[in-house]
């Protein structure tokens, strides 16, 4: 079995490692890097608990080999919080009581982030379709949808605020 040196940026930090070709990305994240916020649910590409962003695209990390992430830019749930401030999605899940057992939550938030980046103000139906590959076995979908709408509004408000625009002017 071939071994590969990989160079992956995760939440802004560069990680280098040598891994087996068959190592799944989610196993590398959890077992080697101890980024255990990314969960394993079904192990069959159905539940979405392992969803992260790869080059900005929501991705089920159980269905990608770590070697395929070489040279790419990843965001996991650990990268949402910035400087002690919850991300609007995390805040939304808190405010709208969008988690019960919490197992699906990281994957839900990462899928929602991918959705909001391409569609900042999704309708309820668009959100339902958007998270249709993420299962919540507590069936707390109603509040999850509210949380995503909350985050969409908050992200929009931050973007439109002149103060924030001034501060983020370097972009």
């Amino acid at each position, binding site marked *: 079995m071939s071994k590969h040196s990989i160079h992956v940026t995760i939440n802004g930090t560069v990680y280098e490692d040598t891994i087996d070709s068959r190592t799944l990305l989610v196993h590398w994240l959890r077992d080697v890097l101890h980024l255990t916020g990314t969960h394993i649910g079904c192990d069959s*590409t159905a539940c979405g608990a392992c969803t992260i962003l790869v080059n900005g695209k929501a991705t089920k990390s159980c269905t990608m080999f770590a070697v395929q992430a070489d040279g790419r830019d990843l965001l996991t749930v650990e990268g949402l919080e910035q400087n002690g401030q919850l991300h609007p999605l995390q805040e939304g899940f808190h405010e709208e009581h969008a988690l019960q057992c919490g197992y699906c939550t990281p994957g839900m938030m990462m899928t929602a982030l991918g959705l909001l980046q391409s569609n900042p103000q999704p309708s309820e139906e668009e959100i339902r379709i958007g998270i249709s590959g993420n299962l919540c076995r507590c069936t707390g979908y109603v509040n999850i949808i509210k949380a995503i709408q909350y985050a969409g509004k908050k992200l929009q408000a931050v973007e439109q605020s002149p103060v924030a625009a001034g501060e983020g002017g370097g972009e």
Partner: protein
Amino acid sequence: MIPGAFDYVVAKSVPEAISLLQEYGDDAKVLAGGHSLIPLLRYRLAAPSVLIDISRIETLEYIQETDGILHIGALTRESELDRLPLIRNRYAILYETAKGIADPVVRNWATVGGNLAHADPANDHPATMLALGANFVAEGPGGVRSIAAGDFFTEATFETTLLPGEILTEIRVPAPGQHSGGAYFKLERKVGDYAIAGVAVYIDLDEQGQVRYAGIGLTNVGPTPIKARAAEQALLGHVLDDTVIRQAADLASAASQPYSDTRGPAEYKRAMVHTLCTRALKKALARATGGE
């Protein structure tokens, strides 16, 4: 679950992919979006000794309509079909097909070419491409050739007529005529499951409203993707009224070869082919006649 051991190599170009395929032969499997293959590897239903990763060949990711043909690069992600106004507006059947494949996160990686070359009778694009009368471009050691969708799938499950060393590089779909339309109807238990049954229909009408082209493809009701040839023939030269539609649906249902499983008994699936075919023909007719 952890896949069996394999060697992994990256092909950065089509010629490199072809030469790697020649080098490793039958032991190798091509990795594109990976969303059919990786689950198979994880379950150890497939155990190739080499994976040739073609997914970074960016020149195979494109969609463009030129000279009356829609060209789809084989590595085009399903999410692109879902997203592009060109597809939504002019190729409703492709849009419907893509948005029913797995789920939106899977569609970020899953490729159109992979959905076809994997040749799973449960995959959705085979039926659609059979209905559309698409052509597939294959590149290999012997050069470039075109394969009609109807000649691409064999009698064996998971098998295509691609030759050793060949890869699928492009899908070519005829641009819609003035009075043409299609539809894809899929019945599924839940998002992400395979179809209980699926029917793709494409028709082109002449000025009198008579059918001059008809394509009908069936999903997951037999060992291979099925082209319902007798049903297609029954439509040619006719105006689509209820009687003609019923005859075609009867023939499509008869062409299906479903087996009973957890998605339902064979008899039920045959009945669903009939229902879905009827609905798809009515929708295609509405689209072909400007009704939608």
